[in-house]
């Protein structure tokens, strides 16, 4: 595509340097934000009369000090990987799925139903069935904003926010009525929840094999999350759908001119995103607890947006971003045990980190775009029409 303009021997190094520059710029921006967060955090720590080195040391120790500690970190990271992937898939196509939150709540209800009712499935098939049903639940919830966007033009941000609100009530209803626990142990006062799932519906522990304590609940969902990252990477980078997604995301006009069905692509992305979102809640109900209760862990969908940003919507970067986020979350325990700083300090650290990441990435992106535009101007390739540039840019990324 568009190979007429530049001689190949000239084009190749420039592409590489552009890409290298982009990656270097992103890495620098991430490093800078991490430094800003740690520095501002240090100021707060000093205000509490503690030593920053000691506090950060404690956080490090509780994440990397032993195999067990790292196991805890990976278990925390597992749902975040799914959640961030779900966000990233849509984002590549220029869609903002802030409905991951609602999608995983509905998926937890679907999974709870499957865990309690599909126990006739033989052997390991039960848990597989549960995961499939969870994904389907997420897909159905994601399909609504997807279809509305394509058919009526309703903005996905508004519709997904509203779908989140509906999902919260839906889960509350499910736990209060159709799935309410029947077998409550005598004399025991339990929170509103479902019955405990049969063992065949739970995901197996892999942590103990490596010496991680059972309390970490490190399950093979982590392996599934990593596999999902690789699949998403392949999907976005090496398949036709990925190409179309990026075309729709970067320039809908030229995508349409190129014969890509914008609506079809958007709906496919929403469905894939919903399927991934469906797996977000599995760690807590199938590994940590073994039931679905009203005291479920919320906000994982919104956290996924932060993690996706931290990983720059790159499926592999997301794995590391999720681990970084999990290290900080794990730090809460470290602070409570080792220091006088309130454990909530960690959440502030995460907040500062994500805020500075969002801002520094934005600055880096603009700087980079300005520089590359300047350089392109010097070479004289600005005569190309905007549309041709867009398609060319995509082709470059593909190589």
């Amino acid at each position, binding site marked *: 595509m568009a190979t007429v303009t530049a001689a190949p021997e000239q084009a190749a190094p420039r592409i590489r340097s552009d890409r290298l520059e982009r990656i270097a710029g992103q890495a620098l921006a991430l490093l800078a934000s991490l430094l800003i967060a740690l520095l501002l955090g240090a100021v707060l720590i000093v205000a509490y009369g503690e030593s920053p080195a000691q506090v950060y040391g404690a956080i490090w120790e509780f994440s990397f000090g032993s195999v067990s500690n790292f196991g805890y970190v990976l278990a925390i990271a597992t749902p975040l990987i799914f959640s961030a992937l779900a966000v990233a898939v849509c984002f590549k196509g220029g869609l903002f799925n802030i409905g991951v939150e609602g999608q995983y709540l509905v998926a937890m209800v679907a999974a709870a139903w499957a865990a309690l009712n599909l126990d006739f499935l033989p052997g390991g098939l039960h848990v597989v069935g549960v995961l499939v049903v969870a994904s389907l639940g997420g897909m159905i919830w994601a399909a609504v904003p997807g279809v509305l966007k394509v058919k009526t033009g309703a903005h996905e941000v508004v519709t997904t926010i509203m779908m*989140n609100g509906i999902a919260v009530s839906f889960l509350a209803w499910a736990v209060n*009525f159709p799935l309410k626990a029947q077998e409550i142990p005598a004399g025991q006062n339990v929170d509103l929840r479902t019955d405990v799932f049969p063992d065949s519906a739970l995901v197996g522990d892999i942590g103990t094999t490596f010496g991680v304590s059972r309390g970490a609940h490190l399950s093979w969902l982590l392996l599934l999350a990593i596999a999902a990252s690789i699949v998403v990477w392949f999907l976005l980078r090496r398949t036709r759908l990925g190409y179309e997604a990026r075309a729709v995301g970067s320039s809908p006009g030229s995508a349409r001119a190129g014969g890509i069905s914008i609506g079809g692509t958007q709906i496919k992305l929403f469905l894939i995103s919903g399927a991934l979102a469906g797996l977000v809640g599995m760690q807590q109900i199938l590994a940590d607890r073994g039931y679905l209760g009203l005291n479920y862990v919320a906000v994982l969908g919104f956290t996924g947006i932060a993690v996706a940003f931290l990983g720059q919507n790159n499926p592999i970067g997301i794995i590391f971003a999720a681990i970084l986020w999990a290290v900080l979350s794990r730090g809460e325990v470290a602070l409570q045990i080792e220091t006088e700083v309130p454990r909530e300090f960690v959440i502030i650290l995460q907040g500062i980190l994500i805020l500075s990441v969002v801002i520094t990435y934005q600055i880096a992106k603009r700087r980079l775009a300005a520089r590359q535009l300047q350089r392109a101007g010097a070479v004289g390739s600005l005569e190309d029409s905007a549309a041709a540039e867009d398609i060319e840019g995509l082709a470059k990324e593909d190589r």
Partner: protein
Amino acid sequence: MSLVDVAVAVQISLTYFTIIYLTGLGGLYSERSGIVNIGLEGLMIIGTVTGAAGARFFADAAPDGLGWGAWSVAIGLLFGAFCGALFALVHAAATVTFRVDHIVSGVVINLVAIGLARFLSATFFDGQATQSNPGGPHLPILNVPLLSDLPAQVGRAFSGLSPVVVFAALLVFPVWYSLYRTRWGLRLRSCGENPEAARSLGVRVSAYRYEGVMLSGALAGLSGAFLAVEEIGNWREGQTLGLGFISLAALILSNWNPVRLLFFAWLFGFAKAIPLRLDDAPLINLLPPQFINMIPYVVTIVAIAGFVGKVRPPAAAGRAYEGGSAI
């Protein structure tokens, strides 16, 4: 179900109306200036915790005889509004100065607010991260003249109200006037419709957008403080219950109009009150209460999909504006 129940439901709905209307007006100022604000829920959360803290500080520091009382509530409300505006400054800086995507920034605001609220709570309330001590005082109650004298107990709907409820309802006049009858309002709206044209006429777009966003923080903060300090009497994690998002829904349905917002804020407030008081009414008794809670969201989806009427946001809302400050 009797007429009294309906009257009491209306009375409850007026409390929810206050929360939704104040927050919705906040969103209105922000979005009319061109900055989409889905961080309303987060701004409210900051209002709840700082409002409760403001009331507590005043009660502790005030001379004898003042302490816990109407004054501490008033200080709490003001402090919540102030801190909401301060926190909204983050959203303004990110979106206006650094031109971060408005949705991204809004999501971050909501996420950070939850953590910040816990942190502030642990700091203010002796390590209690998720609530403050209950049992705070309230403002003296108010009976709306004439309306509260309606016969057959209907007057109960308008008796025993918080003064803030009346304040919120009356706010429609100054808000409408500021937007449609002052130079400031015209300029603010022009920044939301066509910032390039506004700038060419000498309007400082960035300044107006900062003002719009900070006003949204102040109003959402006030709303949160009202909920925590005046209505409940203490701060509790999660007490906003997604009302920030319901406010956003009401704002969208109102077509970004303060007068229509009055109606939708009350309508969604009434929907909130139904399961509390009218759960045995015909038709409603067939539905579990959780389904009633879905109504505002479903109505908004139906409306935004264009099945009924047409909603049109300010033309430039959400779009990055390239003029002004430089990076």
